[in-house]
């Protein structure tokens, strides 16, 4: 393929911004509702000073143009349905199609959130059973499905911890202990709840530094936010000690459930002594990732926090289901969404869990662990350094490219980009922050051995490239719709909304 062909191709492949396809007067009128005409039909006119004067410059395209544009855009994405996507901490596993099609049955799609319970028993039954299943797998006492993603679940959890201490008159507890490996949402959430974050280190084996914890825990401790297995990809072996220290100090234990996939049916956060957990249903229970969401951050609580659960939750009176709200739960931390959270996501999680069933749950953890440990071994055998190679991997593990970075000046980012050329999505890079040049690799249980092998082979090939053709790695990707993008420019010359070329020129 020579230069002429590739310029032609590129032009053919590039999808214009929709405003560039747009032309005034073009429309998709089949989508317009009929409008009554005649003297009687109209609504009263809007007062002039409240009316819009100029039409907004929205796209004007035909239905085919819209369909073609967005279909073509979709093809520019990597996704589970098209690529292996071992993005650590994100549990990118197969999203069963049935979860979507059944959650989209017309009756469910058209149910108004404020429809009376009497007209909603089918829906409420699903939600009630979902609450019960989540209670069981977490070993908690109560569950609310209201939080709309992990971070909002965290917010609910920390808000409940604060409410608990306040209710006991223990107003001074405003510190949240967070291990330094924690996900960014943990400290951000603590701050959003008005707490002070106390970071503590991990020891060289990836466990919490118990001495540091002891030093941090005290009368100001509201609680600790812990991910277990931690974001280092290992199970916190000292969890019993941690639990004792924090509870003894009067704090509560918060479980960040992003990693629940690793322990489903194996060990329950409630049994480990946690007081509250949020789950990422969009991860563990495989609802759509949707290019960034939606999620569902259902929370489960132990007995102490039960009164504070965010509302609404679904209750059962005999054979009937109904919403429990502020009237039933006066101590609740309140509402977090206008209605009841991402109900459609919860529906998908419900369907998924019913298809997995009791035995399927534990298989999730087992095969997630099998895949992760297998890849960790294969990659170390290929010459990579596992950050915690002496440990069992949980459902994910960390490779550090510190050595390669020193030797070849190739960064984790370079390797991530080069993997794209091999037809695989990159693992999470540069998280957790404390491991230099790291790749956090989470294959999930739904990937076949052949795909894991293909990834390991690609990594091994890239290692060879680092020595032999380093530009191939440092300038990757070479085969995506665009070459490496200039993030610095993006942040400096902010271009956040489309403007016609003319307007741009004039800027």
């Amino acid at each position, binding site marked *: 393929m020579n230069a002429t062909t590739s310029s032609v191709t590129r032009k053919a492949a590039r999808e214009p911004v929709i405003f560039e396809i747009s032309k005034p007067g073009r429309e998709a009128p089949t989508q317009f509702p009929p409008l009554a005409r005649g003297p009687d039909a109209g609504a009263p006119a809007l007062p002039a000073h409240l009316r819009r004067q100029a039409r907004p410059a929205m796209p004007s*395209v035909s239905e085919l143009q819209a369909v073609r544009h967005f279909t073509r855009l979709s093809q*520019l994405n990597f996704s589970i349905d098209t690529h292996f996507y071992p993005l650590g901490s994100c549990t990118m596993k197969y999203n069963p199609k049935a979860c979507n099609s059944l959650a989209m049955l017309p009756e469910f799609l058209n149910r108004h959130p404020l429809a009376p319970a009497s007209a909603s028993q089918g829906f409420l039954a699903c939600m009630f059973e979902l609450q019960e299943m989540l209670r069981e797998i977490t070993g908690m006492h109560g569950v609310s499905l209201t939080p*709309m993603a992990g971070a909002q679940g965290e917010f609910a959890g920390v808000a409940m911890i604060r409410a608990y201490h306040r209710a006991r008159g223990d107003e001074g507890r405003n510190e949240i202990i967070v291990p330094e490996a924690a996900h960014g949402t943990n400290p951000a959430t603590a701050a959003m709840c008005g707490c002070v974050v106390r970071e503590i280190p991990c020891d060289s084996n990836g466990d919490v530094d118990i001495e540091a914890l002891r030093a941090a825990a005290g009368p100001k401790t509201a609680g600790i936010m812990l991910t277990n297995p931690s974001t280092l990809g290992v199970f916190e*072996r000292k969890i019993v000690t941690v639990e004792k220290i924090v509870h003894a100090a009067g704090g509560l234990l918060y479980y960040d459930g992003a990693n629940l996939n690793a322990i489903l049916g194996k060990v329950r956060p409630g049994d480990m002594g946690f007081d509250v957990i949020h789950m990422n249903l969009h991860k563990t229970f495989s609802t759509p990732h949707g290019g960034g969401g939606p999620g569902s951050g259902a929370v489960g609580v132990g007995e102490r926090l039960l009164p504070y659960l965010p509302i609404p939750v679904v209750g059962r009176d005999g054979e009937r289901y109904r919403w429990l709200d502020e009237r039933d739960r006066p101590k609740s931390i309140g509402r977090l969404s206008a209605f009841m959270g991402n109900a459609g996501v919860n529906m998908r999680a419900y*369907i998924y869990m019913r298809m997995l069933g009791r035995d399927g749950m534990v298989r999730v953890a087992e095969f997630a662990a099998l895949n992760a440990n297998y890849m960790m071994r294969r990659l170390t055998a290929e010459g990579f350094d596992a950050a915690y190679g002496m440990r069992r991997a949980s459902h994910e593990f960390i490779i550090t490219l510190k050595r390669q970075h020193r030797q070849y000046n190739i960064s984790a980012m370079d390797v991530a980009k080069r993997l794209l050329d091999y037809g695989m999505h990159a693992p999470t890079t540069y998280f957790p922050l404390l491991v230099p040049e790291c790749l956090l690799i989470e294959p999930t249980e739904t990937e076949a051995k052949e795909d894991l092998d293909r990834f390991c082979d690609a990594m091994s090939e890239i290692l060879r490239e680092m020595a032999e053709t380093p530009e191939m790695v440092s300038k990757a990707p070479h085969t995506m719709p665009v070459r490496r993008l200039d993030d610095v420019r993006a942040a400096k010359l902010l271009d956040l*909304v489309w403007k016609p070329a003319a307007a741009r020129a004039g800027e």
Partner: protein
Amino acid sequence: MPFIPHTPQDIAEMLQVIGVRSVSELFEEIPAELLAGPLTGVPLALSEIEISRLMSDRAAIDGRPLNFIGGGAYEHHIPAPVWAIATRGEFYSAYTPYQAEASQGTLQLIYEYQSMLSELTGMEVSNASLYDGASALAEACLMAVRANRSSLSRRILVPRTVNPLYLQVARSIVGNQGVTLVTLDYDRASGRMLAESLQQFTGQDVTALVVQQPNFFGVLEEVDELTDWAHANKALLIGVVNPLSLALLKPPGLWGGPASGNQGADIVCGEGQPLGVPLASGGPYFGFMTTRMQYVRQMPGRIVGRTLDAEGRPGFTLTLQAREQHIRRGKATSNICTNQGLTVTAATIYMSLMGAAGLERVAAACMQRSAQLLKALTAIRGVKTTFTGPRFHEVVLSLDRPAAAVLEELARRGILGGLDLSQHYPELKSALLVCATETKNDADIARYGQALAEVLGAASAKAGAA
């Protein structure tokens, strides 16, 4: 095994590479006393055929009542292409576009979304979404606290004409940071917020004033005056809007009287559901937020920017990430991470299909249908309009008896007749908030009218007989 591709041979080979004899050895670091027993509370697995049947049966229980409830979630026609495309695997099963080069589809789409939302609201920049309208208002309040450097009070004024559920959510969220939301009463005649209740704060340190347009009663507020008041008092103006209404209503970016130069709102947020997202029991919807360029670094949520690649061709990437939790951690503008990407995808397709003309038609049809409904229902004895203010597409009706019982009677007839306002406004004892969108036709409206007449008539008759 459901969703697990491993053959016995795969398992054996993998265990050998790892150097263990069984999968359970992989869990040996978990203290033995913590290991869980069987999850007896979880039922046994269902095949797809069984779960399909179960879900159809559940769906059939709920049926498809004729819906006239609005109150923050609106039943609109959703063009067939919207979800046919949004559920394509490449959109549905991708995650946050961290690897920009392998996510240009999602990224360009978000850039287009930001452009459309900015245009619709008349603001300069938009983020990539927040969870929903209510939490977006909470985030807007927190953002206002950060953005309004001249205010120290952390005091935000919120009229009672703002969606009461939004107010509850905002309270749950902002309370922990010592932000106070002060409510302002409304005018019992017009249904607009009461200008006088604002006067007492004139000259005081107010961080922001929230204005919902159209307000929860469906009534239009005097947004220009309110905006000017806010700016005159160094408060930021947070507009909460129904994005569909902006096809007909003045964009918040132009609020404020001409005398003060149409300064416009400072932060605009709201619920994106009317733009192609199904009712679906309340979610997933998406919250949107737009603002002025000067506040962009205070905005929560992801933002996509256009940039160039190594060969100088345009491309898209997440930008201004230094505001976000994964970089800034405890100092981030918000803890939000996963947002509502898929519903934003749907909304972007919806807006593209409708264009300005289509959105205008939908908005106008909603106004017509609501006017038609109002006419049909107020023709019934005992039914009156409550407020005199100009309306968009929701209407408050006063009945001659408590709304709750009437609604239950209607539900029995397959009609969801509206929202009983007394739960949120004790002073509106027999008030019903009703909404008819473009999805309702003449027959639907007649059916509601007839049913309501029957229900009220039967009750009257009974009362008469007793």
